[in-house]
């Protein structure tokens, strides 16, 4: 305890650029999370629709794809893509990334990380979306068809607006998980917050003040707690407001995200 609380062991936080160096690394994690969740949402919707397709072959293939990718460890996927992607793909990525993209995205390494994060999370989100859509009474889709809407129209105007609303809390909690999972890309040598933490502890980077591993990673952990706690509070507030506004308790998709969201109370 005295080791933990000894002010000498916290001095690193206020010397040199240590704190700024780590917080900037943390922002890289957030950027990776945001990019991944956006792509994963699009891909996840496509997978969910494919899985709900009336074409047997399409739905079986999509189902197999989703089940495989959501049951493999994410770290496994990241490591695999980092090792297996041909160098030409990484080169192609490096030359096609726009110059205004954040610095962390300029390296070809990030391609493997993004592929792992996106494939894994799109599979998880696809299950959440499918459950959201399936939880609607059948009559909704049938009524839309009876009104003469095409399949695409009924999706756009009837099914998706209701189904997707039911998956908001599950998606937010998946985003929190994804946020934490971005630390895994440190394993394939992307200098995000974990790597930066190690740099700070290993070499007295900015000054000759010793930065103990324990204290540096407690600080990094706190950054995640603050952001993720805020996110889950925000999602809870939104849901409560919605419940008040509509006066009903909408049925929610539950249990399909990685780690199940807390009930709003």
């Amino acid at each position, binding site marked *: 305890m005295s080791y933990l609380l000894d002010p000498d062991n916290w001095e690193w936080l206020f010397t040199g650029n240590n704190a700024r160096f780590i917080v900037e690394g943390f922002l890289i994690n957030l950027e990776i999370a945001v990019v991944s969740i956006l792509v994963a949402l699009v891909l996840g919707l496509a997978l969910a629709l494919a899985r709900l397709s009336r074409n047997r072959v399409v739905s079986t293939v999509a189902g197999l794809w989703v089940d495989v990718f959501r049951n493999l460890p994410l770290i496994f996927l990241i490591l695999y893509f980092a090792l297996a992607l041909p160098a030409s793909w990484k080169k192609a990525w490096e030359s096609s990334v726009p110059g205004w993209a954040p610095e962390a995205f300029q390296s070809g390494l990030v391609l493997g990380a993004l592929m792992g994060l996106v494939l894994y999370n799109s599979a998880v989100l696809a299950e959440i979306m499918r459950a959201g859509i399936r939880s609607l009474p059948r009559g909704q889709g049938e009524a839309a068809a009876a009104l003469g809407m095409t399949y695409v129209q009924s999706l756009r105007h009837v099914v998706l607006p209701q189904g997707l609303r039911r998956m908001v809390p599950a998606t937010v909690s998946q985003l929190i998980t994804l946020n934490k999972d971005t630390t895994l890309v440190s394993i394939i040598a992307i200098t995000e917050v*974990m790597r930066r933490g190690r740099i700070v502890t290993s070499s007295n980077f900015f000054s000759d003040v010793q930065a103990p591993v324990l204290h540096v990673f407690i600080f990094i952990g706190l950054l995640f707690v603050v952001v993720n706690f805020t996110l889950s509070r925000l999602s809870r507030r939104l849901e409560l407001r919605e419940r008040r506004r509509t006066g009903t308790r909408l049925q929610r998709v539950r249990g399909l995200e990685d*780690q199940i969201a807390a009930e709003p109370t």
Partner: protein
Amino acid sequence: MPLALIDVLSDHLSEFSSGFWVTVRLVVVSFAIAMTVGTLVAALRIAPSPWLQRLGGVYVEVFRNVPLLVLLFISFAGLRRGGLDISAWVAGTASLGLYTAAYVAEALRSGVFSVGKGQIEASLSLGFTYGQTLRRIVLPQAFRTVISPLGSLTIAMIKNSAIIGVSLLALPDLLKQARIVQSRTFQTDEAFFWAAVGYLLLTGAVTLAIRNLERRFEIRR
């Protein structure tokens, strides 16, 4: 290609199988820790004292929002540098167990709350003691609602156990062994294929077991 696939497995069967069992052991030990600590934290969260409730709440919010990798760094490298001689096994299973305990606590708490207050009042007014009410009315029903969240937590745990092996802890679990085979043979696809089979076997087995349990304890209304 399929031949190379089989060759990699038969040449490195001992690596893959020992890695598989290390993963299984990691998950079993962490599960035990997660259930024990999770039950304690859930008890704190429904305790009559607001201070205890708050304590449970802080535990849940901290361990649920912090990345597992950070916990691993803190518990292994961090504590070692601080002078505490902690082994990779202890640090790995404790991190995964304590991390998952936060989710277990939430699942148990919502399971207990899923039993209506009216039932508890009814059973108390029928002359059941508090202990009897808990044992005969609340827990059997709570158990049913808790099966499926605990199942998905177990699956998440299997997947998260892979983080222990490849991060700084030198634990030769399935993914780690696949890496070792890969670095020796340079047959990335083949080595990772068999690791994937191992993980899918585990998650598949748990999925089936949960489905079975759910069917057996189904609530018919």
